[in-house]
């Protein structure tokens, strides 16, 4: 008996120049001491320069192997909110994904240099022949630098209101003295007039 050899192909259909871009891949985020602003809306831009629709999933993550020296992982990835975790982008289209970062204002979160990543995972599209056989993913590297010192909100409130109260007291004093002087002069004038015509 003769065995028939089964011929099976492993097909790699790879068109030329397959890519999409993402911006910005590396950000430095400086924390400000302006507690009256609660959130900051940011944007990731994706450019699909292909003839087919692109689908990408965004996931924030920490990675001890990828992190740079001098940085520590972001303590809480839930501080990073990506408005659309999966986006589908038509061919030759640019797309913006809003991102919000909100860090808890506690003493331990000051004087920190954190680093975390956002994995942009291409799960479909980007190929000219409609077959997804070659894909490109990106790890965005984001740094967060917090202020050196922690100013308690209550203390900050006192600090900002103290000069205001001083100014108000001075204003009241000056106004009262001015009014008193004017009134006194007026009374004196009226008295003089009474003496003349009296």
């Amino acid at each position, binding site marked *: 008996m003769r065995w028939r050899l089964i011929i099976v192909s492993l097909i790699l259909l790879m068109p030329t120049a397959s890519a999409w*871009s993402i911006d910005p891949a590396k950000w430095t985020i400086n924390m400000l001491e302006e507690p009256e602003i609660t959130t900051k809306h940011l944007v990731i831009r994706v450019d699909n320069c292909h003839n087919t629709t692109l689908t990408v999933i965004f996931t924030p993550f920490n990675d001890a192997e990828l992190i740079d020296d001098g940085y520590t992982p972001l303590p809480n990835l839930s501080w990073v909110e990506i408005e659309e975790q999966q986006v589908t982008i038509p061919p030759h289209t640019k797309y913006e994904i809003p991102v919000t970062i909100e860090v808890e204002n506690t003493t331990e979160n000051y004087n920190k240099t954190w680093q975390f990543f956002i994995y942009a995972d291409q799960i479909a599209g980007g190929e000219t022949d409609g077959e997804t056989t070659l894909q490109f993913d990106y790890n965005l590297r984001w740094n967060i630098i917090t202020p050196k010192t922690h100013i308690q909100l209550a203390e900050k409130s006192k600090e900002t209101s103290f000069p205001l109260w001083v100014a108000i007291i001075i204003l009241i004093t000056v106004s009262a003295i001015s009014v008193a002087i004017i009134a006194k002069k007026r009374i004196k004038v009226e008295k003089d007039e009474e003496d003349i015509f009296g």
Partner: protein
Amino acid sequence: MKKLIIAICIVLSIAVMSPIQADLTDTITVTLQPNATASITCNQSTWDPASNLGEHDQTSTAWGNLSNDGEVNVSVTIKGSNTTDWYIHDTTTGHDQFVMRFYNGATWEGFDYDEETFTTDLPPTGVDYKHFGLNVSMPITSSTNDNQIVTITFTATAL
């Protein structure tokens, strides 16, 4: 005297109403300084390896090239995938199990669905390329004669 009292009352009223402060919330504000685009591109010709079971096929060692068209240096990893009916492996073929390798400039290095270092630092010049080739070893035996399609993924990490 009556006018004096009225004037003082007006001034005091203004003073009492003036210290209006913004609401304070328990949150730190952040600002961003965007400064970089990431974009990697691969150029290669079509490779359609039709090999018998138990055999292998490969491209030239410089069949494709990966370039960095972005604005930041990147490191790049490579990974493969299982197909509909076959499993990928980085060293050993078997029943429904195939092996993928890439030429890293010195040797053919196997890879599977875990990320394998492709290049540690590719500058964003647009003219620096990482040349590579691909090699596939077919399964020893197969439960299907359908064509199989494998996905190869390059992951660029901003440095």
